[in-house]
């Protein structure tokens, strides 16, 4: 499968990845604004105790704890691409996935708590994930992995 590989040492926390993600997942017909809370990034940059940047991106895990915890089947690993995809239409909004993502990547949406903000690998537009395309430091890149 294709995975976004992270080279944390190269991350400069410019947050281009987060902005690109917000843009890529903008609700249709809504003008993009960085101060509009309905735009949310699937990724984020954390810092450890030494202030080192630690990018947090969905791994589309080989054994996805989020999908295992999903009571509705809304989260499931696509057998063809290996990506863990989310279908908000059948989601039960129980957020068991949020609790069970071992790395704290998933979150309910900020404004309504009615869906899960989840990386889709920008699969819909068939391109390279937008976060990767917008990283100036090459701290994230796509690679074919087992």
């Amino acid at each position, binding site marked *: 499968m294709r995975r976004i*590989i992270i080279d944390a040492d190269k991350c400069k926390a410019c947050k281009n990845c987060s902005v690109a993600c917000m843009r890529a997942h903008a609700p249709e017909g809504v003008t993009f604004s960085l101060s509009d809370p309905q735009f949310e990034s699937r990724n984020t940059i954390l810092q450890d105790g030494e202030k080192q940047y630690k990018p947090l991106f969905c791994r589309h895990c080989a054994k996805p704890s989020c999908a295992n*915890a999903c009571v509705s089947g809304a989260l499931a690993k696509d057998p063809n691409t290996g990506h863990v995809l989310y279908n908000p239409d059948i989601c039960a909004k129980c957020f068991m996935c*949020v609790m069970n993502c*071992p790395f704290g990547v998933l979150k309910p949406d900020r404004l309504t708590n009615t869906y899960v903000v989840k990386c889709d690998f920008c699969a819909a537009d068939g391109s390279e994930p937008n976060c990767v395309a917008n990283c100036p430091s090459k701290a994230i890149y796509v690679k074919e992995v087992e």
Partner: protein
Amino acid sequence: MKHVIIGSGAAGISAAKTLREKSTQDEIIILSADEFVYSRCMLHQFISGERQTEVLSFIPDDFLEKNNIEFRPNIAVTGIDTVNQMVKFDGGSESYDRLLIATGAKSAFPQIVGLRDTKNVYGLRDLEDARAIRDKATQSNNIVIIGAGLVGLDAAYGLLEIGKTSTIIEMSNAILSTNLDLHAASTYHIKFEEAGCAFHLGMKVKRVLSNASGEIEAIVTDHDERIACDLLIVATGVHPTLDFLSDSGIKTNRGITVNEYLATSAPNVYAAGDVTGLSESWPSAVQQGEIAALNMLGIETAHPDTFLPKNTIHFFGVPSLSIGQFIPEAGDTKDSREDRMRYQKVILRDGIPVGVILQGDISRSGFWQQLILNKVDVTSMPKSIWKVSFADSYHIDENGEYYWTMSV
């Protein structure tokens, strides 16, 4: 090899999926008491009308067909012949090479005089229960729910969506007392009351009264209070579904007794999910189904012995999660913070979190479970406990996956 699975819940389906992933040839048969595969965790959304039967499933429409799994609906298993390796049911039997019992659990009704024989009294465990409640509720004016745990409140919440309020009787002094502390529970308590529900805490139902047609008319509490009732939902817990095992010789305790490989006392018979009584959560049922399946295939896999109670709660747009202990024991320290929208509490034992409650904002909080499981000493970190995250144990393997390490 021929695998027979009894039950089509989280554990049964997970086992079938794992069997097929590992073996393209083996025969897989699911004997299900249900008419189709559905998720028990969403029945309240069926009651509320938010979800119809066709979207109660938790597997893709083509799952069974694509994975060449034979699904036999409406099968009431009556016994197991462990010597001849046969499953017996009304109108037939089925042989097996490996058998998985994943029959789950069913509502446990308290010992209340007259309860069993009274009409319009339901549990909330099966689609059948949900259908009955949904049909009856529209004409009911006095709905009573026994039990203010998650299932009881799920029912109450689903009913609110169709404009029906309930009176909820709970024997402990707080709602959601197995999931949340008083502070977090009170958030929901207030919201349910504001929505029109009434709670009677610290009370039990002593008797049920019925009319001439045998329909429920009222309940009487142990405080001798009479509460009118034309629909009673009993949500006082469940017990494993294992009555059909009585003649099988398979050892049971509260649930089916299994070893670390989830094998029962009978050869080639395994058990997974709620029927084992090991844990009642969906993710652990999925995990047990997978582990049992691997062992059925001869891939020896042990079930982890760590048991961590955990749940998410989501009513009125306020999500909560609760993992592990939320009441401090002697010697524990408690750290908490709150504002108008949020509440967070952590219980620490020697600097290591043993439980957490998050309410209002549970964004990116999944790492908490790992802090607890991996016994991470959060107080030794050069940052506030509230700023600890996966960043503080950040590891990436050669495939680009994150992983945690046990702290020393």
